[in-house]
């Protein structure tokens, strides 16, 4: 236990800002998960691995001398097709089955992706340097790498674009209709198969954006996907499906929580604290549900 974070107010500010910037990035991944969970009722365990794959796309651009920030445009484009392909190959076979089967299927995809990435890109930890420099605040007591600010900014832009797209476009409306009631949407002429494919593609594209941003701000490695899956799962659980502001808020909340856990409990408990929080929230939810049931009785 270390309470330094409370003794120095500047560290608290640093932790909050770091957490919020990080949380926005998590929220973007969680948004994709919420979308396809809501529409297709699939919990995608391979979410984090799609993120890492997106990161590798940006990294390879960086290797060939292109600025990795362009990965934010290229990576979702490629990842969209990866997502659609994945849907056509595997996901469409499990989409109407129960949740357990889809979890198994995506878990398998996750393992396959990890091994393939390891095979194709090697087990080295890699990163792409953006060379964006640093912002100093409060008499340089608080430092924010510009790459983190950049990734938060890009995440917000993509999230806003997606919200508008969902509201205004024909496909967006079809996706929302399918999410509300797939059968009714089908009867009214929505090609749900196409909607599912597009949803999975959009989710993968969001992962692609997030991955490119992670390769700029952190490091990527074939086996690093799972923590991102857990975090987005957690955010969606807290926020609920189809609750967009909720996803953004709980994303930032999780980011700040993680940073503080890092300072207070130590870095080794960072991911552990996320798991703990997840368990607590699930227990709390159950508790609330059981209360409701009693009430009904």
């Amino acid at each position: 236990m270390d309470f330094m974070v409370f003794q120095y107010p500047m560290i608290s500010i640093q932790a909050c800002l770091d957490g919020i910037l990080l949380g926005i990035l998590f929220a973007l991944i969680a948004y994709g998960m919420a979308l396809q969970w809501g529409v297709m009722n699939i919990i995608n365990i391979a979410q984090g691995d799609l993120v890492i794959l997106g990161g590798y796309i940006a990294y390879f651009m960086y290797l060939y001398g292109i600025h990795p920030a362009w990965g934010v445009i290229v990576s979702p484009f490629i990842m969209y097709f990866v997502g659609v392909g994945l849907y056509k190959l595997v996901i469409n076979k499990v989409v109407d089955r129960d949740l357990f089967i889809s979890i198994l299927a995506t878990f398998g995809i996750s393992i396959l992706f990890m091994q393939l990435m390891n095979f194709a890109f090697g087990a080295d930890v890699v990163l792409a340097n953006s060379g964006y420099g640093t912002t100093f605040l409060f008499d340089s007591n608080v430092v924010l790498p510009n790459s983190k600010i950049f990734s938060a900014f890009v995440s917000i832009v993509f999230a806003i674009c997606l919200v508008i797209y969902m509201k205004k476009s024909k496909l967006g409306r079809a996706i929302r209709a399918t999410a509300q009631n797939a059968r009714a949407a089908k009867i009214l002429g929505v090609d749900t198969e196409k909607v599912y494919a597009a949803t999975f593609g959009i989710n993968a594209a969001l992962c692609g954006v997030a991955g490119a941003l992670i390769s700029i701000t952190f490091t990527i490695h074939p086996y690093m996907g799972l923590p991102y899956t857990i975090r987005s799962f957690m955010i969606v659980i807290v926020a609920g499906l189809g609750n967009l502001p909720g996803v953004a808020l709980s994303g930032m909340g999780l980011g700040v929580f993680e940073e503080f856990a890092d300072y207070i409990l130590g870095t080794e408990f960072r991911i552990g604290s996320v798991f703990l929080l997840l368990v607590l929230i699930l227990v709390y939810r159950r508790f609330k549900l059981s209360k409701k049931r009693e009430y009904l009785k």
Partner: protein
Amino acid sequence: MKIKNIIITFVSALTLLLSTSIVSFAKVVGDKIVLGAAVSLTGKYSSNGVHTQNGYNMAVERINSMGGIKVGGKTYKFEIIYYDDESNPKRAAQLAERLISQDKVEFMLGPYSSGLTKAMAPVTEKYGVPMVEANGASRSLFTKGYKYLFAVLAPANLYLDVAIRTAVELNGGKGVRIAQAFEQDAFSQDVRLGILDAAKDTGSEIIIDDKLPKELNDMAATLVKVKQMKPDVLVVSGHTKGALTAIRQIAEMKVDVPMLAMTHCDAAKLSKQHGKNSQYALCASQWHKTLTYKDKWFKDGMTYDADFTKMFGYAPPYQAAESSAALLVFKDAFERANSFDQKKVRDALAATDMQTFYGNIKFAPGGQNVSKPMVLFQVICDSSGKCENKVVAPLKWASAKLIHPVPKWSER
């Protein structure tokens, strides 16, 4: 149709049976000494696993082409059976079992990493199979009383010991304030124990003592503390990702610290990935090509570097060099034992006292190599931005002067 299927099944079963029985090697087949090795060709250690395998292969090729091994007036050649342990300790232990009981190998080479070596050592010990390993440095390997385990490398607790002692020396013999962040794995925790010992010896104080998680990719919290507390030395050990993450975030957050010491910079190819940002970092290394050790097979470090690069297309990290040294040790032990009796070879290994291009090798009773010190190199860049690793400590081999304290970011 049905009969055809049955025939196909029968024939393939027969071939399978035949192929497995042919592959049952004995320890010495004709003029070949067969060694067994499980290395990580896939999984998270696969890059260093491949370095290990390349190091072994290079030495096998060299020893065989230079006359092989002379035992009992007859010349033998080395051959290695490899298996992929998938970077998984359980698998490594299974493979050790398989190599010994099915493939009948009687001598083993080590895998990559302390964790996997730890998994295999009890098996080789049980069967009394001598194992020379080159990539497991964890101190706990050498405190279990293993009789058949020999490591050509210096144990993990000595990795960054030199750095602390150098810092104290530069501080006029007075203790320094140390900040440290270590991953929670066997190896890094041993490095940490070494630092604790060194701190105690020198009267230094540890003011930050962070543990890093396995899935580390953000150590901003530690660095913020470092910024506030201003230690004299920052020590980071968390394999490749620790080294890469530390350099990235130190540069981004402009953390000024007079000395930064790390492990695994070689494998992280720091200067290649980070360019000038990695400048002045101190790295612990088992070996560096400019060291002046010599032997008759590889001549010296520079020649090894050149030959390895020619053979595999990349410069050898120390993981490859130490792996090559393991075979030199085996050759030497076989010739001195003048026998293939496992006990005799084991005793000969225990009595090893030789110099290789990689360093002097002499085993302590625990099996660790005690006669080869660690070296520290510093990443030094010239004005054109080209960076190089230069040995700065111990002074005997220094090819450049240590730059200390590290210039502040505002002055770079």
